[in-house]
Structures are given as C-alpha cells and as structure tokens.
C-alpha cells in the first residue's frame, strides 16, 4: 500500500449537552492513504460527520477531542487549539464539500467572489489572475459560460449547479484531502450520478485524496477504493470495496448490504435493520451492535471485540472471528451481490 497521509489513533470525541456527556467517537483508529478514495458509511448518527470535522477543527462549540491523536504531516491535529493553527489546515490542506448545496453558499455574494475568496487565501491570486482562474475552475466543474456565470448569485443556480460551485470552491483551495460529506444526498438521482462522476474526475485531475461520506452503499461502489463501516462512533469493519461487498464479515455490514434496494426482489419487502442505534449518552458495553443482532453471542454483551485481521487490507471488530466462536453464515441475499454485482457497479 502507498503512503499514509492522515492517521487517527484511538480517537475519542465527546459533546456536552445539557450537563450530560455524549461519547460520539469511541476510539477510532484509521489510516487514510495518499491518493485513495475512502468511503465512510453508516447510519445517521453513527459519527461520520463528527469524525471528519475533527480533521479540520470544525467541531461544534460543545464538542472536544477527549483523547487520541490525528497525525497529518508530522503534526498531531488533536493538539491544535487556536484558529491560527487550524488556518494552516482548513482549505489549504483539507477541504470540505457539505451536504446541502442550497444552504452552503452565501446568498448575497456572487459565486465568483466566493470562489475568489478561496483563491486569494490559498494562492494569493487577485484581480485578473483570479478571474481567469475562477473561470478555469468553473469550466472544470462543468459550468458553461463561466465569464457570465461567475457574476451571478447562488439563487440563479439550481441545486446540482450549486453543488458544482461548492466543489469548485473546494478545488480552488488546491487541498491534499477532499472530504465530501454526503454531497449528493440532497439531489435527485440523475444529478447525483453527474456530481459523483464529476468528483471522480476531479480526484484524478487534481491528485486528491478523497474521504467520501455517505449512508448509501449503492453510491459507494462507484467511488471508493476502500470502505470503512461506522456504527455508534466506531469503525466496525474496513476493507477494500471488493472485500466489503463480496466477503463482508460484520453482522452490521451484512445488515447494511441486505437492505440495499438493488438486492430486493419485486413484490418482497425490503430488508430493514431492526431496532435503533444505542444511546451514546450511556456507556456502551460489549459490541454496540449486539442488541440489534438476532444472532449475537453471549460475549457480545460483555466485552468489546478487538479487531481481527482478515487480510492485509481487511479487518473487522467482531467476536465471530474468534477461533472459539461458532460458525455463522452471512445472510443468503448477499450472494446476489456476487451474481448481480455488475449491477451495483454500473448505476
């Protein structure tokens, strides 16, 4: 594998809310490789956004990194306190695309200005040089007539076009890492595919490392080299795309895959995961997924599983991999992924 660009070690993030403490990220150790596209998937509330926000110092005021470290270019970002320190990272090294393009642009500034702001901050470009570059970037993200469009305001753009602008802003920073936090969730399906394609092209063109957050595994198949599955503030399984799709090991990953609409059979009810994620205000004992797992083992309720290595690239936090555990087969439907896998990849 290639060089590690960012690494977290046993990262813990907490929030204080009305006098109580919520443990949102529970000991995440993750390596992100230079040039790869890593997808983070998981249900709503599993901590995908919080995890990536810690990389840029963008946690809400009531949140903090409780312990652990975030290594990037020889510095531990978990120790960063001041705005001055974070300004060396934000935009410059790590840029972000947010979920809702309708609200992530300032409605009272032209999009040219908003892209220009990033150019001036990170490349010192101003005036005509900046204008030229803004137009190039707009073309890059597929916006035609850039000279005219750059003078327009966000309300003159549709949702998909606005997301292109947001992506243009991120790219204008020329970062090393691009974090896309559910960039297509708010868009309709045809536009989703276009934006996804655009992100893929830009990653290649600008040599970006991409962390792509989504709760839709169907989308992931198209962008990711590797997939990390998050549950209740923890990464429960991580592996290459092929490993996660074709030989998943964690019961939660099985459940996520089984609920893919692509695997549904006409007329049959789609699989859905029973129960709700654990309350992160309480201390979690054992495997966080156990209460929702019909085949949970006794030990799942008592002790938190360690990571078991399946291959060099694939590891899973699950007691089923223990030599003493009984053999539990993945659900039958998952076999359809191998037969209909082509389907998943070509949306």
């Amino acid at each position, binding site marked *: 594998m290639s060089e590690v660009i960012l690494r977290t070690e046993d990262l813990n993030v907490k929030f204080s809310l009305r006098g109580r403490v919520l443990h949102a990220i529970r000991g995440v150790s993750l390596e992100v490789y230079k040039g790869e596209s890593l997808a983070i998937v998981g249900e709503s509330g599993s901590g995908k956004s919080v995890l990536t926000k810690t990389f*840029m110092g*963008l946690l809400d005021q009531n949140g903090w990194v409780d312990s652990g470290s975030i290594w990037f270019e020889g510095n531990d970002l978990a120790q960063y306190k001041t*705005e001055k320190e974070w*300004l060396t990272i*934000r*935009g*410059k090294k790590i*840029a*972000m695309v*947010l979920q*809702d393009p309708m*609200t*992530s*642009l*300032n*409605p*009272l*500034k*032209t999009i040219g200005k908003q892209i220009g*702001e*990033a150019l001036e*901050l*990170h490349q010192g470009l101003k005036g005509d040089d900046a204008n030229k570059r803004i137009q190039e970037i707009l073309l890059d993200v597929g916006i035609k007539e850039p000279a005219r469009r750059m003078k327009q*305001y966000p*309300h*003159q*753009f*549709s949702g998909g*076009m606005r997301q292109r602008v*947001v992506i243009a*802003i*991120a790219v204008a*920073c020329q970062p090393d890492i691009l974090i896309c936090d559910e960039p297509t969730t708010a868009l309709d399906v045809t536009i989703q595919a276009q934006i996804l394609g655009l992100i893929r092209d830009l990653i290649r063109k600008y040599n970006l490392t991409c962390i792509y957050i989504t709760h839709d595994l169907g989308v992931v198949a198209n962008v990711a080299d590797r997939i990390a599955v998050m549950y209740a503030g923890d990464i429960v399984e991580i592996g290459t795309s092929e490993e996660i799709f074709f030989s998943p090991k964690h019961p939660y990953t099985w459940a996520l895959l089984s609920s893919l609409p692509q695997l549904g059979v006409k007329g049959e009810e789609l699989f859905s995961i029973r129960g709700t994620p654990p309350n992160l205000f309480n201390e979690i004992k054992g495997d966080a997924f156990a209460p929702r797992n019909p085949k949970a083992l006794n030990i799942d309720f008592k002790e938190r599983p360690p990571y078991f290595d399946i291959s060099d690239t694939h590891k899973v936090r699950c007691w089923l991999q223990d030599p003493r555990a009984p053999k539990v087969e993945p659900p039958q439907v998952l076999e359809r992924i191998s037969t209909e896998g082509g389907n998943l990849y070509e949306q």
Partner: protein
Amino acid sequence: MLKYVGKRLLAALVTLFIILTTVFVLMRQMPIEGYFDNIDKADQGVIDAKLHQLGLKDPMHIQLLNFYKNILKGDLGVSNRYRTGAPIIDIIAGKAPISIQMGLISMALSLLLGIPLGAKMARSKYKFWDKIGTGFIVFINAVPAAVYYIYIQSYGSSMLKISMLFDPSKFLNWVLPVFSMSLGSIAYYAMWLRRYMVDELNKDYVQLAKAKGVTSQDITMAHVFRNAFVPMIQYIPSSLLFTISGSIYVESLYSIPGMGGLLVDVITRQDNTMVQALVMIYASIGIIGMLLGDLLMALIDPRISFAKKEGVR
C-alpha cells in the same frame, strides 16, 4: 429596475390616495366647532358664511376635488383655532427644523451605538457583553420611557450644570434630549442585529466559509454582519423619518419647540384643519418610509430581482 421602481411608486401613490381620502372624509364628520375660534359668540349667519367660504357646504366629491387641487398647489389650508388665520405650512415650517436636526443626530447616534453593540453581542453570545447588552435591552423595553427620561433630565442637568430646559444655541443642551431620544432605537437596533447575526452564524455557508479557511474575523464582518444588516436596512428609512417627525415626550419635557408636541396640541385644541394636515403628513411619511425601505432593499439584496424572471439553471 425602473419597472420595479415604477410599480412600487404606483402602489405607494394608490395607498396614499386611499388614506388621504379616508382621513378627509372622516374629518368632515367632526363637529363644526373645530373651524371656529369662538363659536359661542358668533351668530348663525356668520357661521354659515364661514362654512360656505371654507367650502364645507359643497357636496363631498367637490370638496375632495378642491382638496386635492390645493394639495398639488402645496396649500394645506389655514389654522382656525391653534393659531387663527395662519397658513398651516408656515406653522409646520417653523417647527420642523429643530425636530429634523434632533432626529438626524439621534438617528446617527443610535446607529453608531446600536449596531456595534448588537454585533458585539452576537459575537460573544451568552458571554459578558451579551449579558450586559441584554440587560440594557430588557431595561429599555420594560421600564416606561417617561421614568428614565425624567431621571436623565434631572440628574443629567445637574451633572452637566445646565438648565433643565432646552436652549438651541448651547451645545450641552442638546446632549440630554438627543441621548434620551436615542436610547429606544439603540436597544432596537442592537436587539435585531444580534438576532439576525445569530441566525446567520448558524447557517451552513458559515461552516463552508470556515472550512475554506476564512478567519472568524472575516466571517463575522464580510459574511455574517453584511447579511444580517440587509434585512435591517428595510426599516431604516421609516425609522429615520419617524425620528425626524419629532419625539412627543422628549420635546415637551425639555420644552423644545418641535413638531412632536404639535399633533397633541392641535387635537386638544380641536383644530380640525390642522389635525387633518398633520395626520396626512404622518401617513405620507409612513408610506414614503416603507417605499424607500423596499427600494433600498431591492438595491442591496440580489435575490429581489427587477428584471423578467430568469429561470435557474
């Protein structure tokens, strides 16, 4: 743009026409005593002659027509009781300048103090300055103005060693009334700016600006403050026009010969023509204020489009 201005102007004129007509018709229902200095001593013949001369015996539509003709000529009629025989325009012209001067100064002071206070409060939400500011706003809104006006007048005068009554030629004498007049608007501007800024600070675009590396200083000034100020701009012309039309209480407290006390005076004196003229002036001020607010807003907020609808793409 021109089309938009034209449309708004037309709407304002129609509103003004409806209000003026309504006021005029209503005023005609007032007792006729309001047109005479001393009706008890006049005999019926004199009364009838005067009413005839004023045109009050004509059918309503003729009266209205004459009324609009006179307005267009800039003639508001004469006072009959307040200052018998004096043209209303002259009376107002004598009183307006002092009110306008005070109003403008007070307006400037309110903006100068209220806006930074609101911005500071929003930036230090729930911290020291926010608490101080909130205390001030609550005080201004909860305590009747009359109470602190009187305190300001009596303590202020003795502190500055000046007389309690107004003397336009002395600078120090301007301080207390102008300050009193401004307190309400300072609280008002601070309160709304804080609210709008806190709203803006929670928006996604602030997150994105932060993520692209803009300093929090620049985010507050170039993004948040600017955006929060836009909805306030709409109210500034009205607020300006109303402050220059005089503050009733402050003017009477300091015996300032301004516009503020005039309406109260003419109502107690039952001077029909003057009441009519003043009500109309205040109504017009309100309408003009709103019109200017809308136009200013349209100039500044790109989302309000003047041109034909251009589809989003």
